[in-house]
Every structure is written in structure tokens, then in C-alpha cells.
């Protein structure tokens, strides 16, 4: 087995096995060790190795926000970071925010406000909105729009998305008072 982990050229025309190493990731509260190459993005690690396919790959270049996840509570693009850079970090994906039987307030608001059409951008939108709530810096519609601008929606569901996020921002604001 250990031979498989070397990068020596393979004989018989087979591609050389890639050099992987164990990487310890804590995803949605569960720590797991994945066998990963250094060049595996966090996004690919989540989707292809941890089999959490809720997080989506849109552009793979930081330009769309579909891959947004929370790392230690802060939203980042998982396509522009390497999995190996996140040992000891706490990673939360859409699967960790709520379940179909127990939706998070944001997930429920997205349903209530028809905040999606195809749904491809939605996990990124919701993780980003959760990051926005954690930051606590957006209050008005103009502020929410600006601080949600890292998430594009090709279906143009922006009106519903804004309504959904605004509703949760407002209700959290009320609870704090």
C-alpha cells in the first residue's frame, strides 16, 4: 500500500500514482482524515473525498461564490484554497447548517421567499448569508446587497435572495434588542 503513495514513475503505461498524505479536517463537527494530494482544493476535498456534494463548483476561480463555505465561522471561497491549508480549522458546509427536517432560519427563509430557481448557487448563497450574519455588519438593504455581492445567481433570483436574507437579518436584530 505504501508503494502506492510514491511518485515514482509507474511501469506498464499506467499513470504515476499521486503522492498523497493524510490530512485531518473537521467538517460539520466531525473530524476525519482524508488521503489528499497538496494540490487538492478544499472544494474538491469536500465534494470528491468527503462526499459532501452540497457545496457547488461554479467557476473554480473565485468569481461566483457557489463554493462558499464557513471556515472557523467566516465565509471563504473553497475553490481558491487548498485542503492541506485547513488542518485544525472548523469547516461548515451547507450540510452542517441544517437538515431537510430541521432547516436553519436562512434555509427556511430561502424556501419562503422563493429565493432560487435552479438552486445551483443556493448552498453558496446560504453559507455566504450565514457568514454575513456572523459578521453582523449588514443591516440595510444596500448593505446586504453589497455584502452579498460575492455570490452570483445566473437565474437572477436576487430579489428573493435579498428578501430572505433581510428577513433573517431583521429577526436576529430584533432578538438582540
Amino acid at each position, binding site marked *: 500500500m505504501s508503494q502506492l503513495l510514491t511518485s515514482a514513475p509507474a511501469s506498464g503505461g499506467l499513470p504515476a500514482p499521486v503522492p498523497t498524505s493524510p490530512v485531518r479536517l473537521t467538517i460539520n463537527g466531525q473530524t476525519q482524515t482524508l488521503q489528499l494530494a497538496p494540490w487538492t482544493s478544499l472544494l474538491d476535498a469536500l465534494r470528491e473525498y468527503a462526499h459532501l456534494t452540497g457545496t457547488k463548483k461554479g467557476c473554480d476561480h473565485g468569481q461566483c461564490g457557489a463554493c462558499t463555505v464557513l471556515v472557523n465561522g467566516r*465565509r471563504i471561497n473553497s475553490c481558491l484554497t487548498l485542503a492541506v491549508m485547513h488542518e485544525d480549522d472548523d469547516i461548515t458546509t451547507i450540510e452542517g447548517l441544517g437538515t431537510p427536517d430541521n432547516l436553519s432560519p436562512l434555509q427556511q427563509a430561502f424556501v419562503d421567499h422563493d429565493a432560487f430557481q435552479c438552486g445551483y448557487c443556493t448552498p453558496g448563497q446560504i453559507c455566504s448569508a450565514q457568514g454575513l450574519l456572523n459578521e453582523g455588519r449588514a443591516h440595510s438593504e444596500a448593505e446586504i446587497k453589497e455584502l452579498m455581492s*460575492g455570490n452570483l445567481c445566473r437565474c437572477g433570483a436576487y430579489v428573493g435572495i435579498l428578501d430572505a436574507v433581510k428577513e433573517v437579518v431583521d429577526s436576529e436584530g430584533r432578538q438582540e434588542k
Partner: protein
Amino acid sequence: MYPFTYSRATDVADAVRDKAGHDGSAYVGGGTNLIDLMKMNVEQPAHLVNVAKLPLSKIEDLPNGGLRLGATATNSDTAWNEQVKARYPVLNQAILAGASPQLRNAATNGGNLMQRTRCYYFYDIATPCNKREPGSGCSAIGGFNRVCGILGTSEACIATHPSDMCVALAALAPTVRVSGPHGERSIAFEDFHRLPGDQPELDNTLTEGELITSLDLPEKGFAKHFAYLKLRDRHSYAFALVSVAVGLEMDGDTITEARLALGGVAHKPWRDQSAEQLLKGQPATAETFGRVAAHVVANAVGRGSNDFKIELARRAIVRALKQAAEGQQVAGDVYLGGQ
């Protein structure tokens, strides 16, 4: 991507040693520019030294009244820092005008200074580009150059430095502290980035293996009269076509000191000290602003699809100076300017 090796540095000395020990290696901060370039095969380091978790993330007062911004502090933490908001609002607004919340959360201050141009041809390895492959030619001259520069360009390269943060820094004039195989040194911000000349492959004056450790801001922050105006193809999440950072000190209606820097127009954040001299002692009037703006773009050269930037820059300078003189802009958690 392609195969490479990886390590995480524990302290500055370890990072510098690790980098020196690996040919063709690179530091990685947030990765938001480097990993993108690696995916496009524009850059292919054989080894990455992760510096994001080095203990350089503090933002702290300096004994001379200035403020030290750690190189690995994120762009978000820097923009939202209470000291930055209160004392250097132009920096707060410039950072928040750039990229997206997700990107700013990952991006580090060191990485922001070191980010590379967004010239289309630099990213497209199928085309000639002197910056990517010295001597191959410049596809942007005579090609699509809407995003390219109008000031300080050369016949070898007309690329721009794309950062917003660095435009505010150019106006604030910090020093960049670096640590390398030959020890530590400080570089004036003005001397950090360079013009393309006949070596466009060099974006800045760092030497091999040097690591940025902090940005040291001087005391003067122009907190009362400042502006960061960013003009782009859409209101958010787009690079600047032209941006302007202004800092003024006023005595009544008279400008007693001025800082003026432009983004999106040159290979480096474009501070114009001769324009600053022209502003000094002058009344804050439309006439003054118009004269100074005309002076800044007097030697600008368009290359076809970016000709519009000359007029855009001229008008943006007038507007930013007016905003700064009137004290219109305030620090905040969001950038809502330029709309």
C-alpha cells in the same frame, strides 16, 4: 492543477529557510491570487510555503504614533479594525471596495501587495506576454486593452496593478517591512512597486526569498478629509477601471496638505507628488481641482480600447477631491461609494 509539495511555516525564520531550501518555491497567504494563477498554469511553483498562520496577524500601535498592520492579517480584519476605521478611513474604504467578502476574508495584506495584474493576456498562456514570458511580446498593445494602463507604461508592457488597498496605501505612504535570507529591511511604499520599463516580469523590488512581515503606517491618516472613489463596469465585485484615493488637510477652505493616488491606470499604484504640490496652499474650488486633474493626465497615453480611461481619470480626480474637501465620505463596514 499540477504536482507540487507543501509545507506550513511555524515562524518567520522557518518560512524564509524553507523557501530558500526549495528551488522554484513560493509563499502562499490566502491563496486567492496564487492558486488561481496555478490553476491557469501562469505560475507553477514546485513547492508552497504556507505563511498564512505565521504570528504576523496583529494590528498594533507603533511608538511613533503610527499603526502596524501585520502581513498575515486578513483584508477583512484590517478594513474592520477600529483603529483603521478611526485613523485611516481611506484604507478602510479602499479595502472594502475590492473583491468580495469571501475573498477579503481569505486574502492577506502581504498577498494583496503581491497580487499580479489582471491583463487578459497575462492569464492566457496561449498568447505572447512579456510579463509572463520575457521577450515573447506584448499582446495587449494593439490588442484588447480596456483594462490596461495609461500612465508610466512602456513598449514592453502596459499592465496595471489591480489592487484597491494599495491605492490607499500609496496615499498614506507606509513602509513595508520585509525579512529575507540576508536579514530584515524596510522599503518605502513608493519604492515597493515598480514601473514596467524593459523588465515587466518584475512587479516590485522584493528580492528572492524576501517575506513581507508588516506594513507600518505613519501617524498622519487624513481621517477628516479623504475619499476613495472606485469606478468599474458594475457596482460591486469588479476590478477598478479607475480609482482615486485622496487625503487632504484643510485650514478653512485652503488645502494645506494633499495626497493623491490612482489605481487602474499604471503598473504601480500611481501617486502623483507633483499634483500634491499643486494642491498645497490652494483654495478647495472646482477650478483648482480641474487644473490638478488635467495635470495628472497630461502625459497619459491611451492604446485604443482604454482611451476612455484618460477622461474617466480626469473626472474621477475632480470628484474625489471635491468629496474629500467636503468631508462627504465616512469610514464604515461597507463600501457604498462610487454609485
